[in-house]
Structure formats: C-alpha cells, structure tokens
C-alpha cells in the first residue's frame, strides 16, 4: 500500500502520519504541494498543521496547490483519501467533503483529549474498529467547529456519512463536544466513503511510546484495505 503524505507550507504532523503508516507495513512517502503527480499512490493523507498560516481561512489557499487536481482525480477514482485536522479543512475547502470548519465556539485553541464514537466502519480508515467503539484521542485546533447548511447536514445523517462523533462518557473526566460542531460531528466521509476528514489526530496515538495505540487502527485499516469488488448488475 503506497501512501502519499502531502506537505504544504506549514504542515507539521506529516512525520507522525509517516511513522504510523510505516509501522503498519505500508509504504509512506512525502509529496510536496508543488508536485503534480501522486506517483502511483494507493492512498493519500493530508496531514495536520497550519498550511499557509491559515491565512484567509484554514485550508483556503492550500486547496489551490498544484498537487490538488491529482488528489481530486484520485478521490474521483474511488481511492482512499484521509484529511486530518488541517487536512480535513483543506478537503472541505476543496469541495471533496461537504460543509466547513469554523472558529471554535469558545474561541480558544483546544489541545486536549476528547472521546469520539466510531459511527461508520466501512471506510478504508475505520474498518478495524467496531461500530460504536468509543476512543479517547487528542485534538489540537482553533477552527474545528463543523458547520453545514441544514439540508447538507440532514443528507449527511441520512446517508450515514458521519464517521466520528464527539461523545460525553458519564462519570469519566472527559469533555463532550469541545468546539460546538453541529450534531457533535468530529469526522465525515463523502458519499462513497473513500474520502474521510477528521479533526482528531489518530497519528498522535499510534505508537506505544506515546502512551496509547488507540489511533493505530486508522492506519492498519488503510494498509490492509482491499477495494470492494465492483458488483455487476448487468
């Protein structure tokens, strides 16, 4: 599984994503925002960070990078694309995912663990979880409040496109929805499920050195992902 990890000016989570993919036996490699070819990538990861200093809006300028048309073609072919944090913001700005990520409701930059529930396990990134699993995973963002028009939000729910949702666990010291995201949304997929964006950082908990490996399965799912065979209805 060849996994292209994109570097934009201001990306800062790409080494963690690289290591997480390598640990699961995948073949990660970096591409620069000025590249135009994905070099036979099986999957693409847009890592976290602050591309272009978050100028104008988070992800708004990175979305027009020379590499992005190749990412759009890759996504249209049904191949896996994962955007983490700033990567999620870039995917929303590019229109590969619906909605937008706005300033946190409390205006603070939040760097802390949250509990999220896995809502969907048929994506290339969540196949190794069980539906309903709740995992504790870090966030680090100032603009993570998922927002969408009411009809878009309804469609996301009807089509089962919500992949991760913030939850509050009773009697556990954990925040619920940290940023005011509509419907407690922490991550979504496109209609086909091959493009996923999420605000939490699984790559930060994918090594025992870091105290937890609860994020590993996003990467083991991907590395072992087999594209479902097309079913002929002829």
């Amino acid at each position, binding site marked *: 599984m060849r996994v292209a990890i994109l570097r934009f000016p201001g990306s800062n989570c790409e080494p963690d994503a690289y290591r997480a993919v390598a640990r699961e036996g995948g073949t990660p490699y970096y591409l620069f925002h000025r590249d135009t070819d994905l070099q036979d990538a099986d999957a693409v990861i847009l890592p976290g960070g602050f591309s272009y200093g978050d100028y*104008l809006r988070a992800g708004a*300028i990175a979305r*027009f990078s020379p590499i992005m048309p190749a990412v759009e073609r890759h996504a249209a072919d049904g191949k896996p694309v994962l955007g983490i944090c700033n990567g999620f913001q870039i995917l929303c700005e590019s229109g590969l995912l619906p909605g*937008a990520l*706005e*300033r946190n409701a*409390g205006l603070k930059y939040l760097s802390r663990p949250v509990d999220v529930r896995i809502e969907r396990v048929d994506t290339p990134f969540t196949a190794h979880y069980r539906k309903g699993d709740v995992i504790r995973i870090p966030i680090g963002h100032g603009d993570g*409040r998922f927002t969408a028009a009411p009809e878009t939000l309804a469609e996301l729910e009807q089509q089962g496109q919500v992949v991760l949702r913030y939850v509050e666990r009773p009697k556990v010291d954990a925040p619920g929805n940290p940023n*005011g995201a509509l419907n407690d949304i922490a991550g979504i997929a496109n209609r086909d499920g091959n493009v996923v964006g999420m605000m939490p950082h699984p790559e930060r908990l994918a090594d025992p050195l870091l105290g937890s490996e609860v994020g590993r399965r996003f990467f083991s799912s991907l590395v072992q992902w087999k594209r479902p065979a097309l079913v002929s209805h002829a």
Partner: protein
Amino acid sequence: MSFRVHIRVMPRRGLLDPQGQAVERALGALQFAGASNVHVGKAIELDVAAQDEASARAAARAMCDKLLANPVTEDFEIAVEPK
C-alpha cells in the same frame, strides 16, 4: 482602467458568530450600553485592471466565489470606485 475594489466578507446571518459574541460581551464589560447584534468579518481591498466598472465588479465577484469567501458560511459585498 484601474479600479479600487472594496470587499466585505461577513459571517452568514443566523450562523453562530463566536467572535461577534465575544466582542459584544467585551463592549458590554466596558460600559458601552446599547451595543448589540455585533458581527466580525473581513475587509479585503485590491486594485483591479478592467475595461469598465461592471467588468471590475464581475472579476471581484468571481474572486469571492472562488477564493475570498466561503460559500458555506459567508456572504460578501463589493464596492468599486475608479482610481
């Protein structure tokens, strides 16, 4: 001809505007009674070379649609003046 274009990008009415709310609270704390309905947006200014005012305006609208405003969460207004 060259035109000075003033673009105002504002959070869409009805959506949560935490910056506007925070500024409104700060104004209240500073005893500015009567300040309400505060919203915070962006102002963008640029020169546009175009044949006439209408085409300068059309160019600015295309820039807003494509880059300067987020169609999901923001609205924009454009003012054009000859330089």
